Structure formats: structure tokens, C-alpha cells
């Protein structure tokens, strides 16, 4: 029963991939050659590659450096810096690029794109690496030193291997987000696959050109996933002892404290203060025309409604898989879990494109309806929910079922009195993360929202498309305010939700 449901969920998650694969087979080799092997695709490939490589490199440097300063050095006010370094996540990348380009229109170059997306995405590396630094058992370093290793050798042979998983995971996350990023790059007029797919779709509607571009993009994403799996290997590092690790000694910075503070200040200034200042500026300038309160309220209502619906549906869909992965460990459960992750590695634009085409062809009465939009959200954000359901089920081992059965409790009674109360916090956290992700979702919503349904993101988008920066500002501010709680959640527990 649960297994059948989990299989259905996996099938839903794999739907966009299946669509692209099926389409490619239909077009045939000659069609693929004609559509893919052309200078335009080469140019997009070059743009995407150099952006991904450049951004990942910058993010690793910034993320590692900042994490070391905050977790392992004597830099003052470390808690404050931690929160400030996670804060950029509260500003969606497309809002960030709006903030920059509306102030500096000359940023529509490779360098500009690199700057803006790096500032948006470096927390994806900072967070897991900081958590990994925190999780490193000082006893290991002391043991290594006791075995006669130098400080540098300790870093290279003990710490770095343990940070590798975090750095790789964070890099993969940055790279996948970049390949899927649409709004920020469209706004910066830096053409990559996503923006090209969108333009093609708008121009020719459901043309084979867009779908084949999507095919290339999906291949890039899958390649990244495979590469990460190979690089990471089977490494899993867990502290073998019980109880909390002792706190670390922090490295004294001495005379370098000033430069360190300056560096952190510059990073936070660029990543947080600039966008906030820009938003404030446009709010004030834009308020010369009266604030459209009615429109803001109705858009916010629609957004919250959609997000709540998607959160409930996605958590419900995540339940069978998350449960089976823990309670029925084995190849099948792992396969089902992996397929949902694979499905959500597909960029939002591709998911949207696939659902548009499939719903027009197979179920025209569903085309441009809320269920299709919610399905897209579910496909995109399932891992957020599954990770949380999974860890919740792990908190509720089978022994509780056995004990309550021995105490005469029926299956339903057990669910009500033991299982659900134990799972509730995890389910809630998963649902909250999905909710907040949907609030700032732009790409799939643009393509799939029913006519007349406007969310904060799409209202913001249509305002900026007309270069009405002032009119766009209130929507952006609302999105930032709604995303803030998610950021707090993430800064508290870096390992949850991020390491998917």
C-alpha cells in the first residue's frame, strides 16, 4: 500500500525527465543533430559553463573562508556574523539581481552576473561547511597532533577530508541552482539555457527547439549529480562517540583581526546591505504613486494559499517514501528516494515546460489549472519534505510500536497516540520549508499559473519587465519578509533541508 503510493510519487517526480527522454526518441537522431548542434547552443553551453565554474569557485573561496573565520577564529561577534552570512538566502536571487541592475545598469555582463549570483549563492557553501567545522570532533585533531602531525598536516589529513563532503555537497547545490536559475539571469540579460528555453517557449510556444534545449540542460544537471556521486564516493563521516563534542579552541587572529572584520563586512555589505538599500530606495521613490494596497493584499493571499496547498500536498506525497526509507530499508526504498531527488534536480523551467505540454496533450481540462501548478511545486520541492519526514521517522524507532502494541494499543490508536505526535515536528518543518520555497518560486509559476492568478513573484516580474522598478519594490519587500523565517530555520540547523 505505502509502497504503491511511493512508486506513484517517484513516477510523478520522474515525469519531466520521462517527457524529455520520450521527446528525444520521437525526434530521432537527425532531429537532435539539427536542433542541438548549432552555434547558438554552443554559445549557451559556453555561457552556462563559465558561469557555473566561476561562481562555484568564488562561492567555495568565500564560503570556506567565512566559515573558518566564524567557526574557528577569534573574530569578534561570531554569532552575529553567522546570522548575517546566512541572511542573503532571504533575498531571492532574482530580487537581488533586480536590486543591483536597477542601481547599476552596466552589470549586464559576465562579470556582473558572476558578482550577483555569487552574492546570492555563497551561503549554500558557507552553511554546510560551517556545520561541518562545528561537527569536527576536536578529539580527532588532538589525536592527530599527539601522533606527531604538524598543524598544516592536521588540516590537510584530518580536517579537509571531513570538510570535503560539505564542500562538494554545497558546490553541487550552487551548480544545480545556477543551471536552474532563470529570473536573475534574465534580469541581468545574461543568456543561458534557462533564459533561452523561456524565450523560445514564448516565441514559438511548445516548440521542439525549447524541448531539445531543455534536454541538453537536463543532461548537464544529471552529469553534475553523477560527478558529485563519484567524487564523494561512499564516504560518510560520523562521530563514533556519544554525547556532545567539546567546544573547539579558536585560532587567535591577532593583528589580522582588522582585515578579517573588513573582509566579512565587505561581503555582508555587498550581499545584504546593497539589496536592502536598493529595495528601500525604490520603495521610497515608488511611493510617489500610491501603494496599491488592494493588489498587494490579493497577491499575497493567492501566494500564501498556493504555498499552503503545495506544502500540505508535498508533505503528504513525501510521507510514503520517507517512511519506507527508514522502516523498510533496502534497494527498492533507496531507489524510490533517489528517483524523487533526481526528479527535483531538473530545473523549474523544464518541469514547467513538460507539464504544460503533457497537460495540453493528455489532459487538456487540466491545462493552466491550480492542480498542475501544485504538481510542479511538489516535483521541485519533494526532497525538502522527504529529508524532514525521513529524519522524523528515524526519531520514532519501531520499538515504540512494539511497546504500544504490547500495551494493547491498536494500529490506529498507535498512529494517533505515538507515531503522529512523534512525527509532527519533522512533518511541520518539512511543510514550512516547502511553503517558503513556493512563496518565492518564479519560473514554474510564470509558465503554469492559471490566467488571472498572480503571485508575489509573478507580479514583481511583470512590473520589472516593464522596467517599473518602483512598482516592483513592494512585492520584493513582501517576499523578503516572508522568506526571513526560512533563513532563521536554516541558520539554526544547517544540515536539514540544505544538503539535499
Amino acid at each position, binding site marked *: 500500500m505505502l509502497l504503491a503510493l511511493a512508486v506513484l510519487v517517484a513516477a510523478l517526480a520522474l515525469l519531466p525527465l520521462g517527457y524529455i527522454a520520450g521527446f528525444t526518441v520521437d525526434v530521432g537522431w537527425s532531429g537532435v543533430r539539427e536542433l542541438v548542434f548549432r552555434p547558438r547552443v554552443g554559445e549557451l553551453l559556453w555561457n552556462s559553463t563559465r558561469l557555473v565554474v566561476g561562481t562555484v569557485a568564488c562561492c567555495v573561496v568565500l564560503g570556506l573562508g567565512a566559515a573558518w573565520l566564524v567557526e574557528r577564529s577569534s573574530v569578534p561577534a561570531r554569532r552575529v556574523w553567522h546570522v548575517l552570512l546566512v541572511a542573503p538566502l532571504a533575498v531571492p536571487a532574482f530580487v537581488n539581481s533586480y536590486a543591483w541592475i536597477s542601481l547599476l545598469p552596466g552589470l549586464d555582463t559576465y562579470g556582473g552576473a558572476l558578482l550577483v549570483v555569487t552574492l546570492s549563492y555563497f551561503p549554500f557553501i558557507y552553511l554546510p561547511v560551517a556545520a561541518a567545522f562545528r561537527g569536527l570532533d576536536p578529539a580527532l585533531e588532538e589525536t592527530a597532533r599527539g601522533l606527531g602531525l604538524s598543524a598544516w598536516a592536521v588540516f590537510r589529513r584530518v580536517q579537509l577530508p571531513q570538510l570535503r563532503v560539505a564542500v562538494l555537497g554545497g558546490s553541487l547545490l550552487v551548480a544545480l541552482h545556477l543551471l536552474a536559475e532563470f529570473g536573475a539571469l534574465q534580469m541581468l540579460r545574461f543568456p543561458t539555457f534557462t533564459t533561452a528555453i523561456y524565450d523560445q517557449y514564448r516565441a514559438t510556444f511548445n516548440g521542439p527547439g525549447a524541448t531539445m534545449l531543455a534536454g541538453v540542460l537536463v543532461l548537464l544537471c544529471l552529469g553534475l549529480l553523477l560527478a558529485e556521486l563519484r567524487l564523494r564516493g561512499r564516504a560518510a563521516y560520523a562521530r563514533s562517540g556519544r554525547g556532545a563534542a567539546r567546544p573547539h579552541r579558536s585560532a587567535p587572529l591577532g593583528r589580522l583581526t582588522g582585515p578579517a572584520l573588513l573582509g566579512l563586512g565587505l561581503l555582508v555589505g555587498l550581499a545584504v546591505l546593497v539589496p536592502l538599500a536598493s529595495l528601500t530606495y525604490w520603495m521610497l521613490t515608488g511611493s510617489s504613486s500610491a501603494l496599491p494596497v488592494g493588489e498587494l493584499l490579493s497577491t499575497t493571499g493567492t501566494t500564501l494559499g498556493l504555498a499552503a496547498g503545495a506544502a500540505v500536498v508535498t508533505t503528504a506525497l513525501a510521507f510514503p517514501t520517507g517512511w519506507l526509507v527508514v522502516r523498510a530499508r533496502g534497494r527498492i526504498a533507496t531507489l524510490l528516494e533517489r528517483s524523487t531527488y533526481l526528479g527535483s534536480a531538473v530545473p523549474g523551467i523544464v518541469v514547467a515546460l513538460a507539464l504544460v505540454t503533457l497537460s495540453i496533450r493528455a489532459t487538456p481540462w487540466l491545462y493552466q489549472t491550480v492542480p498542475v501548478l501544485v504538481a510542479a511545486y511538489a516535483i521541485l520541492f519533494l526532497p525538502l519534505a522527504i529529508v524532514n519526514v525521513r529524519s522524523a521517522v528515524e526519531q520514532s524507532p519501531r520499538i515504540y510500536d512494539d511497546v504500544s502494541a504490547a500495551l494493547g494499543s491498536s494500529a490506529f490508536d498507535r498512529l494517533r497516540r505515538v507515531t503522529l*505526535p512523534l512525527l509532527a515536528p519533522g512533518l511541520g518543518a518539512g511543510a514550512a520549508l516547502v511553503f517558503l520555497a513556493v512563496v518565492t518560486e518564479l519560473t514554474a509559476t510564470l509558465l503554469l499559473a492559471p490566467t488571472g492568478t498572480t503571485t508575489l513573484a509573478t507580479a514583481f516580474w511583470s512590473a520589472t519587465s516593464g522596467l517599473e522598478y518602483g512598482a516592483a519594490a513592494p512585492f520584493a519587500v513582501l517576499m523578503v519578509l516572508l522568506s526571513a523565517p526560512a533563513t532563521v530555520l536554516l541558520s539554526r540547523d544547517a544540515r536539514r533541508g540544505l544538503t539535499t
Partner: protein
Amino acid sequence: MSSLTVSEVTKSFGATPVLTGIDLHVPNRSLTALLGPSGCGKTTLLRLIAGFDEPDTGAIAVGDRTVTGAGRGVPARRRGIGFVPQEGGLFPHLSVAANVTFGLPRRERRDPGRVRDLLALVGLDAALAERHPHQLSGGQQQRVALARALAPRPSLVLLDEPFSSLDAGLREDTRQAVAEALYASGATAVLVTHDQAEALSMADQVAVMRAGRLVQLADPQTLYRHPLDLDVATFVGDAVVLDADVRGGQAHCELGVLPLERPCPEGPSRILLRPEQLQLGGRTAAPTGTIARVHSVEFYGHDARVLLDLPSGLQVTARLDGSVLPADGAEVAVAVSGAALAFPARAAGRDQAGRDQAGRDQAGRDQAGRDQAVA
């Protein structure tokens, strides 16, 4: 409360047989310990009795009621068997009071008097009722788990290594509290453990399990004094095992000529002594004793273990009270008090005797080979 009868129960996980025909009877109002090394199948047996798993063949009856076998099993929740898991298994989201009353009908759950009585039964203060499990010590958690299992007045209580995660000091107290609560409630109980001291001190009868079968079922004293074979003997306590020759109803061995605990066929055999049977004297004080050299002394305070090197090179252990102890390297005379338990060499402890036998055969063959080579 009822008795428990397990008949010819077998269970395999995949191709691995875990239980190969278990028969066990636990009398009403008694505590039986299932004792065995890890992996011998004792926890599996407990789970079959509780109804969490079903046996492949065989039957289990609680009192007169067959709960599994001959068709379909009664589900765990209808068996009326209390269960105390290894780490207590207290529901982390419920208070102590809610944990203890979990198995009671709804209207009885609210009764504070009931909670107080149940906590008192396991020797806990009623003030703990509003605490949450993570605010309790390990021993308190185990007691709450027992109170929870006893609350619905089960016909039988199963305890799965309930003390293994506790510190030594806490373990003694908790053991005693649990034993008293079980006695006061008149419960029939089965306790799984791999700790022989726990089994011997708490149980009315001990079932020794080995590799999926029940080797010996006896009361603690019989088990310690008359183990079925040398493996059981060494498992339930420290042992001194010597080669001996049984002649005229006496065992002739390195420590002298010893009387026998029970008759044994004449011929080569292995004898069992307990370390507390060895008595040490000064070299001159006991001219009849065997002279041994003290290898080392382990001092525990209340008593001490002395490792002795016998003239043959064999090392044996003596247990003394800690008042007067020999020095390392001293020569002492060893005397034996009480009788020895002899096992005919062929049937004695499978491993020991088997290995010796094989060794002798091998030596014989080697000798034969050399003879041939010379010829």
C-alpha cells in the same frame, strides 16, 4: 498471572536458523532468566513470545491459552504480555504519568492515585510523574518502563536486557527495585540477559541458550554447581578446569586426589572446580598441597582473584577474601575444599575435549610420518 509454555519453537531469518527447537516452561509467579551470549537467539525468542514476530513452527501458550501455533497467532496487542525493552523505550513526547498509564483504558488514565501507586510499586517518588523521559536517569527510565508494562496487569512480563545500558552502581539498585516490584505484583516474568551474575542473583530458574537451542534449564544453584557441560560451567562463572584420571571413585589430578560430586565412569576425564574452592597456604603450612607460583593478583576490595602457575605450566584462578593476599611471584601451597565435578573426557565440553583429542591424533600422525621417513 499465568505460566508460559514454549513448545518446539523454531525460527529462521532467511536461510539463517536462529532458533532450532526450543522447549521452555515458566511456572506461574516465577522469574526465569534467558541467559546466553549475544547472537544465541534469546531476544528472538522473547519477540516471538511477545507476538512481534511469528515462529516458523511450534507453539506458545500463556496459561491455558495458545497464543501462537496451530494456525494463526494472536496479535501482540491481544496477548496481554508486558514488555520492557532494552533502553526503556519510553515515549519521548509523553510525561512519566502518561507513559505509565499508556496501556490503561481512557478513564483510568486520569487517575493520579493510580499513577502514584504504580510509581510506588517500582520504588519511584510520585513527584516524578510530570517529568519527561529525558529528565530521568537511566535507572529511573527502566523503572518507569516496568511500571508501564505492569499497569494493565499483564499475565506475563518480558524484560529484554533491561539493565545492560546502566552503570554498575545503578544496575544493582535498579535490579533490586525491579525484582521487588515483580515479586510484589506477583508477576510471571522472563528476563533476557547475557550477564550471568544478573541471571543467578535474580532468577528462580535460568535457561541457558547456545546457538539457537536451550542447553540447560535449572535453578541458579543447580546451574552453578551441576552445569550440564564445561561450556555451560565456564559461561555461568569462573572455572578451574583440569585433566584428571578417575579411579576408584576419586579424581587424580595435579591438585591431588579429590572426591567426586557425582559418580563418573572410570578413565580420563576433565574436572571442574570453582575458584573459591582453591585455598592457599604458606609453603610449609600445608605439606600435602601442590606448590604453585603466584602469577598475579587482581584486588577488588571485597575479594581478590589470584592467578596461579601450576608446575605443569597450567594457569588457574583462586578467589580469596581480600584480607591476606600473597605477593606476586610467591610460592604457595594449593589445597582444594569440597568435591570436584568430573566430565568423561569424550563427552566433556565439546570444544576443549575435541581440540585436545584432535591434537593428540595429529601428534600421533606426525610421529607415524617420521617413523616412515626414518625407515
